């Protein structure tokens, strides 16, 4: 069995794909990742074959600028830049993937929901594909606000109208990408598609979420498989040795791999921790240089820290509410202070508040007082920790990468491809 993975060139997405690929290759199957040349540098899994495409538009080194653009998606210009970048990559992949994919001859394609080209090209070539939701799933539902929105769950008629209205604004902002998806689906001889949600697999979506964390859908999605966090097989992280010897509560602070440059947030959180007598551990994921890092005033600041081990030692976590950090926190039963920045983070923060596993603050006008108050509550009021801990068993039981690999193998088997809309060909 040969699976080809198509993912956007972002570390957090890539790691989820690698976790699934690792399970497949460990079982003797083949896994190949196709992406822009710079993605090769990010690949960690030796058994995952990387195939670069598109060097004419994405010469080696080009990705750094794209990551910089994706790092400020919270301004209107930044957001349009991100959408433009997605569009550019989707167009390139739709043009270039077919000639490569034909030769690779995969049994199945695993297509990240954030990159429409994987689905469009697989469908064009008649290869079955499943979707992988590294972030919150894009499948739409009238009762569930789009993941990019901070709205709380409100299935009342007023809430539904609000969701509909917001979706229209969202779609207008995404126009550049949606027009590209429509153009490419027509060029590839497919039924018209427009949004990323139109490009999800008819077979299944493997999602890093757990069902209980999601807002209830008005129309249940049976093809949505909540397998929980997709993590490497060897996930053993030794305890982090902290350079102090007291039992003050520890607050872990991470803004993920794209937002680690936001010194202002780190500084405010570090200051708040000092005020309430907590120790702060900041991981900036390489977003700060040594000078800027020293200026944060954290008790411990580093580029990377073994996150799951760190969380086991933490009393609270401050995060941008990226899917990876949120689910690691839930698996460890640690309350969350969410300071969402962009993408699906407002949606994840809304779920955190909805389920009582944490609190949310706006990154705008982030006051040290407000952070200190929120952290005090998270550390002192047991309900947050209890609620967070109540998710741990479900996260542990969701199946993760092993379950995801089973689903991939299931649909790679030609006998299991009962696609209702599949055309009959000889």
């Amino acid at each position, binding site marked *: 069995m040969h699976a080809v993975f198509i993912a956007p060139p972002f570390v957090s997405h890539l790691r989820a794909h690698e976790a699934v690929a690792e399970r497949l290759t460990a079982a003797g199957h083949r896994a190949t990742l196709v992406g822009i040349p710079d993605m090769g540098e990010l690949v960690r899994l030796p058994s995952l074959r990387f195939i*670069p495409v598109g060097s004419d538009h994405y010469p080696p080194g080009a990705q750094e600028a794209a990551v910089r653009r994706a790092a400020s998606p919270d301004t209107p210009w930044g957001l349009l830049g991100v959408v433009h970048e997605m569009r550019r990559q989707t167009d390139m992949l739709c043009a270039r993937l077919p000639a490569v994919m034909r030769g690779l001859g995969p049994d199945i394609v695993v297509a990240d929901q954030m990159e429409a080209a994987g689905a469009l090209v697989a469908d064009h070539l008649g290869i079955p594909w499943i979707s992988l939701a590294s972030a919150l799933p894009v499948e739409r539902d009238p009762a569930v606000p789009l993941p990019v929105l901070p709205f709380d769950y409100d299935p009342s008629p007023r809430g539904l109208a609000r969701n509909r209205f917001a979706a229209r604004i969202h779609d207008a902002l995404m126009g550049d990408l949606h027009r590209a998806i429509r153009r490419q689906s027509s060029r590839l001889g497919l039924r018209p598609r427009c949004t990323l949600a139109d490009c999800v697999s008819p077979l299944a979506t493997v999602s890093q979420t757990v069902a209980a964390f999601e807002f209830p859908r008005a129309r249940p999605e049976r093809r949505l498989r909540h397998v929980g966090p997709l993590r490497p097989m060897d996930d053993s992280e030794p305890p982090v040795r902290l350079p102090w010897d007291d039992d003050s509560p520890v607050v872990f602070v991470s803004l993920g791999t794209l937002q680690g440059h936001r010194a202002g947030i780190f500084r405010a959180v570090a200051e708040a921790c000092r005020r309430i007598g907590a120790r702060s551990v900041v991981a900036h994921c390489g977003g700060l240089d040594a000078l800027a890092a020293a200026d944060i005033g954290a008790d411990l600041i580093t580029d990377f820290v073994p996150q799951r081990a760190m969380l086991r030692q933490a009393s609270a976590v401050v995060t941008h509410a990226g899917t990876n950090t949120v689910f690691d926190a839930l698996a460890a039963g640690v309350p969350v202070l969410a300071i969402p920045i962009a993408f699906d983070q407002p949606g994840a923060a809304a779920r955190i508040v909805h389920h009582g596993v944490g609190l949310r603050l706006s990154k705008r006008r982030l006051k040290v007082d407000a952070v200190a108050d929120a952290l005090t509550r998270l550390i002192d009021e047991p309900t947050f920790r209890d609620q967070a801990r109540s998710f741990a068993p479900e996260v542990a039981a969701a199946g993760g990468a092993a379950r995801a690999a089973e689903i991939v193998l299931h649909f790679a088997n030609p006998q299991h491809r009962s696609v209702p809309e599949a055309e009959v060909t000889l």
Partner: protein
Amino acid sequence: MTAPDIILVGGGLANGLLARRLRMHRPEVTLLVLEASDRIGGEHTWSFHDTDLLPREREWIEPLVVRHWRGQSVRFPSQSRVLSGGYASITSDRFRQVIAADIGGDNIRLRTPVRALTPTTATLADGTMLTAKAVIDGRGPVATPHMAFGHQVFVGHVFRLSHPHGLDRPVIMDATVPQTDGYRFIYLLPFAPEVLLVEDTGYVASEAREKHDYTYDYVDQQGWEPIDTLRSEVGDLPITLSGDIDAFWKEAAGVPKLGAAGGFFHPTTGYSLPDAVRTADLIAHLPTLDAAAIFAALEAHAKAQWRRQGFYRALNRMLFLAAKPAGRRPIFARFYALPEPLIARFYAGRSTLGDKIRILAGRPPIPVGPALRALAATVHSRSH
């Protein structure tokens, strides 16, 4: 729609070249190409040696040639050698451009698989029956009880490298690679200073293509860094071991078969282009272009060729049946130590008796007993 004169089933190399030749010589003949996939030509690279074609044959396919090289080389653990013979390649992208312009887009129907054929009708998947004076089947190799095949399987990628690869001629066999399940070699076509086709090829007995794709390891070993993959191709070329040529053509029931469907390829190397050029010429020069005339011409041509090719099939049987997979490489290594004109005649399928003796003579590369049994082995038709 008025019925076309000729329906070409399958938009591959042989039917495409035939269409081009008919356009040149018989512009009045109307054509319709039915192609099952979404484009003609698939994803291939077709190559040939300069000596495979006569100048007048070469002339009319010249627009299809994307690259010509002076010389080629082979590499074995025991020896490397530069051969002076020229080499040329056609890519499916160029094929599509040229042939589609020849035929005219209106006369090509894509995504149109055919369910059944007779010499004058083609029935589509939806039951529509199209008629013509002749229907030609060019849909590639088919399983038949009348032929026994080995397989030349390959997977290849056209890479753009971060730095020039430094090759100025094709490496048609680099057999220094591990010999896993058959005769394995890497095939290299340097299309541009930084653009290179790297193909992992194996002469294997079973149809199951070995799953491992060795090209990436090879590229690593050479110190090349691919920064782009322009396209990839996979293939499974039949290598004829033995067969019953009379039964094979009887089975066609009067439907003319072209290309691999008709067994028109070099029995040992699997090269198909020279045969496709010659069958196109053959048909384009027939006085009448009806199914019976085309079938008779192709059948006669195939049978005459079959008789001349006995030596190559015997060699294939030695390769596939007698030699253990690991023992196949020395046979090729020895062959490529022979004089160049002999090698050129072998490529072109025109080996002389003297050539044949020299190819087989000397210390036998495989034990005599199994070799003799392989030479004697034939496949008997089950339809008799």
